[in-house]
């Protein structure tokens, strides 16, 4: 049995695993990008009440292995609260939390690092506040943020593999199950690697294209 035969034979399983992985990714990407950006902006505005707690949470999360965090949400927390939550929801919450705080930290630090002199220069040129935000602040912040944020999204895609360890039927778990039945690890995991390459490479290419288009080197030589 070669790779294509395996893919054809078990296509339903692969496709359902793929669908779960993509669903998980979309949830984590969207929540991270939207809520992370909002949290980053609010954290800059209300540093004491939102910015500081958000930075502490990011710091704590960055010091906790993803797997430990995922397992902790799945087993002890649910045991303490005496509830049972679908592993897919747990994985979505865990990965979204990580993505939200990572994105918010990038957005917050980009806003904080924006040289105020550019804003001051706009002020003395009489640029109205709305134009200042749309034409100067947002483009400069966007340029700063786009590269690291896209890089994190590629990492998030890879992190979805951990969901298999709490029994989410995503593509890695499907591969494990098929392998347990037919024991063809080379073919199965090569197919899996090809799948991740197929999704990751265009994303990386997109990140590079965005970077080229929007994040032209604007530094002074």
């Amino acid at each position, binding site marked *: 049995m070669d790779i294509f035969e395996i893919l054809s034979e078990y296509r339903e399983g692969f496709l359902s695993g793929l669908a779960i992985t993509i669903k998980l990714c979309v949830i984590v990407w969207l929540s991270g990008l939207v809520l992370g950006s909002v949290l980053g902006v609010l954290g800059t505005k209300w540093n004491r009440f939102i910015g500081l707690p958000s930075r502490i949470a990011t710091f704590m999360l960055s010091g906790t292995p993803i797997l430990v965090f995922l397992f902790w949400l799945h087993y002890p927390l649910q045991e303490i609260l005496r509830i049972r939550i679908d592993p897919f929801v747990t994985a979505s919450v865990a990965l979204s939390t990580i993505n939200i705080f990572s994105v918010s930290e990038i957005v917050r630090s980009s806003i904080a690092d924006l040289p105020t*002199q*550019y804003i001051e220069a706009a002020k*003395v040129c*009489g640029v109205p506040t709305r134009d200042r935000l749309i034409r100067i602040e947002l483009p*400069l912040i966007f340029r700063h943020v786009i590269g690291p944020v896209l890089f994190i999204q590629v990492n998030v895609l890879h992190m979805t593999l951990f969901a298999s360890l709490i029994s989410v039927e995503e593509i890695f778990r499907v591969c494990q199950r098929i392998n347990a039945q037919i024991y063809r690890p080379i073919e199965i995991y090569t197919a899996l690697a090809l799948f991740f390459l197929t999704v990751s490479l265009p994303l990386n290419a997109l990140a590079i294209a965005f970077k080229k288009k929007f994040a*032209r080197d*604007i530094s002074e030589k």
Partner: protein
Amino acid sequence: MIRGQNIHKSFGNKVVLNGIDIEVCPGQVTVVEGPSGSGKTSLLRCLTLLDYPDSGVVEIDDVRYDFPRTNGEAIAPPYPFVTVVFQQLFLWPHLTNRQNISLAAKSRNHQYENKLLDLIEYLDMKDFVDRYPNQSSLGQKQRVALARALILDPKYIFFDEITSALDVEQIKNIISLLLDLKGKGIGIFFITHNLYVADKIADRTLYLNNGKGVIE
């Protein structure tokens, strides 16, 4: 006329401006000299209301602002009627030189295109106006910063040490530009370390040292 009277400004325990009086008149050049840290830029920021003095009076064409503000009345920003060319210029790096110049004008005056063309001609910017600031030399960027100020038809322009990194030829060009602007009735406030420049353009000179000012 822009007038500062008895301007005081401190940062913590350090008194930077200690009772400074100064005038900037239309069609005249007021030069401010002094060693580093003597408060030249602080004075510029106070007079243009980018920062507020701790105490004193700033008058901008008969509109009087007393400091400290006790009546809570808001200060109307005087820009771009009063504008500033900063030492580091702060051209917006993601916009081309042309976009830098036109951004402010666009939102204020929809007929700015002719003025932009005149400025490109006047400041000889044709070769680099469509480049980005980081693709332009310092002298070119200075001309862009100047054009960005001039397109707004300001009555007063404040320059913060813009000649500090220029060579002799570029300084001569700046002097001739400043004299031209002065001839057009623009009031100029010019911070410099360069005595040669000060000599060539000043109608009055304020020498700042240890927070005190001496008018020459």
